């Protein structure tokens, strides 16, 4: 008699995912333009958080400098649009991924030689380097004014969809929503496969016990580096998708508080789960919009919520729900 499977059942996963995808696909028909736009932001942050959590939840490395990769993705797209006069979003994404690949490979090489505290500080310091470069070389980067990326200059699907002319804003929001949703689904599926692959198991082993991982033949440093690069790429993709929506990229996206927001999103959703970061990112997006709207001191609000989360709800939203479900199942 074959023993029970040791992994997630694909039919079950699809059965859970498809309704959610369906809901997301139908949402723009139900809610207004502003809400749709908000959700696009949420989805891009979800991609970033997904990438970030490969390092935190699965490899056990807490990075305080992921703004570097988000910003790299955003600025690369801005440079490509402004200086190379490229309109195709696909080419922009490709360029952003290449730029992010270089930066995350470089930074990762330095950072993964260390763990815990030193790793975190190195990631923070390196992202600050990028920020200070964006800030100071203002004749290239536009300094605090940043670089504008107008939606009228962007085309989707190799030029099939453009956003010039009247009514283009509405068209942009709806088309871009489905574009980002599609990429979000692809990214999520990709990440799901990665964390359930033998490589993903090796990362978790490294997280749990790096000494034993080495003694089982895993090249710890190399695997950490690969995870770092993959993580950076996902976050860079998010940055690339974010910039046409935001219309503008500024050094703020490279500054350390944004790294903090990525950390916050992931912890909010639950970093020991797969879907936690996604839920956390979308929830955080709404939380921040509300906090910014109601108070000039929204960072204070976020800080308080983070402290509360760590003390009272360390599993995050999804983690706590999963725990509760497990307890109910045992009864």
């Amino acid at each position: 008699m074959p023993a029970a499977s040791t992994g997630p059942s694909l039919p079950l996963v699809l059965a859970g995912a498809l309704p959610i995808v369906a809901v997301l696909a139908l949402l723009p028909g139900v809610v207004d333009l502003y809400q749709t736009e908000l959700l696009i932001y949420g989805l891009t942050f979800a991609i970033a958080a997904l990438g970030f959590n490969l390092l935190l939840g699965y490899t056990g490395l807490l990075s305080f400098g992921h703004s570097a990769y988000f910003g790299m993705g955003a600025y690369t797209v801005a440079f490509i649009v402004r200086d190379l006069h490229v309109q195709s979003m696909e080419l922009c994404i490709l360029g952003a991924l290449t730029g992010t690949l270089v930066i995350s490979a470089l930074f990762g090489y330095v950072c993964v030689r260390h763990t815990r505290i030193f790793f975190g500080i190195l990631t923070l310091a390196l992202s600050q380097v990028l920020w200070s470069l964006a800030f100071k070389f203002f004749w290239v980067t536009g300094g605090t004014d940043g670089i504008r990326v107008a939606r009228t200059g962007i085309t989707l699907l190799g030029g099939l969809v453009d956003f010039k002319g009247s009514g283009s804003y509405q068209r942009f929001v709806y088309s871009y929503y489905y574009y980002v949703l599609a990429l979000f689904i692809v990214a999520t599926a990709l990440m799901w496969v990665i964390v359930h692959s033998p490589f993903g198991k090796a990362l978790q082993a490294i997280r749990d016990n790096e000494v034993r991982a080495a003694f089982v033949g895993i090249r710890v440093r190399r695997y950490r580096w690969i995870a770092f690069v993959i993580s950076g790429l996902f976050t860079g993709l998010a940055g690339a998708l974010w910039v046409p929506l935001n219309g503008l990229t500024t050094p703020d996206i490279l500054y350390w508080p944004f790294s903090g927001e990525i950390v916050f999103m992931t912890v909010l959703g639950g970093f020991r789960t797969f879907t936690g970061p996604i839920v956390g990112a979308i929830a955080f997006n709404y939380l921040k919009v509300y906090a910014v709207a109601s108070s000039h001191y929204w960072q204070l609000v976020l800080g308080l919520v983070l402290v509360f989360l760590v003390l009272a709800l360390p599993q995050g939203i999804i983690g706590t729900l999963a725990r509760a479900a497990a307890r109910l199942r045992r009864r």
Partner: protein
Amino acid sequence: MALLQTVDLKRYFGETRAVDNVSLSIEEREFVSLVGPNGAGKTSLINVITAHLTAESGKVLFRGQDITHASVTERVRAGIARSFQIVNLFDDLSAFDNVALAIFSREGKTARLGALAHLDQAVTAEADGVLGQFGLAAKRHDSARDLAQGERKLLDVALAYALRPKLLFLDEPTSGVSTRDKGQIMDTIASVVRGEGITAVIVEHDMDVVFKYSDRIVVMAQGAIIAQGTPDQIRSNEQVAMTLLGTSGPDAFTRKD
């Protein structure tokens, strides 16, 4: 040619001579016990041989090759595996995943990002087989953290075994386990090891276990080897009895109960 040979291996910690000019030979298929009082350097010796610690001088030869400067993973790939005195597992992974990971690593499959781990039939079957051999089949879905101490010790050994090594170092595989479980664990380990002809070096304090299973016993004290031989030779060695037990005489090693 000996499977493993150390030549004048040295590792000091300041004044302390953890490994003091140790020259040791291990032949294929031997079951060697490494004994000695606490602080004798047994674990340090294993640590140096497996690259957990670096040697200050001396050589380590494995199958004739000089591996003195090889890294941990290189030695694992060459065929040396070890278990740990203080259990070293992947606590948040299931017992099954622990073993499967060792197999994936051995097969070089850990580089695969695009395939789902649990769909690999060959690895799944082998991992289940190993769990069965170590009596852990029923616990395959439990996370390593939730296992009982004896089961954790067995899993620690199973992880090393799953690498199908040529040479297996077991550091106190029964320590911290109740006397009742000790025998069971050692029987399991010995049958697996002997059954497959794996060369094993085991650090052990329980002399009953040592005398029962060993082909050869190596006695260490203060970082150096003071005696080695068959169980009978060691049993009648007065110096050894003095070092280990504080008394000597023909009945020193016999239990008086």
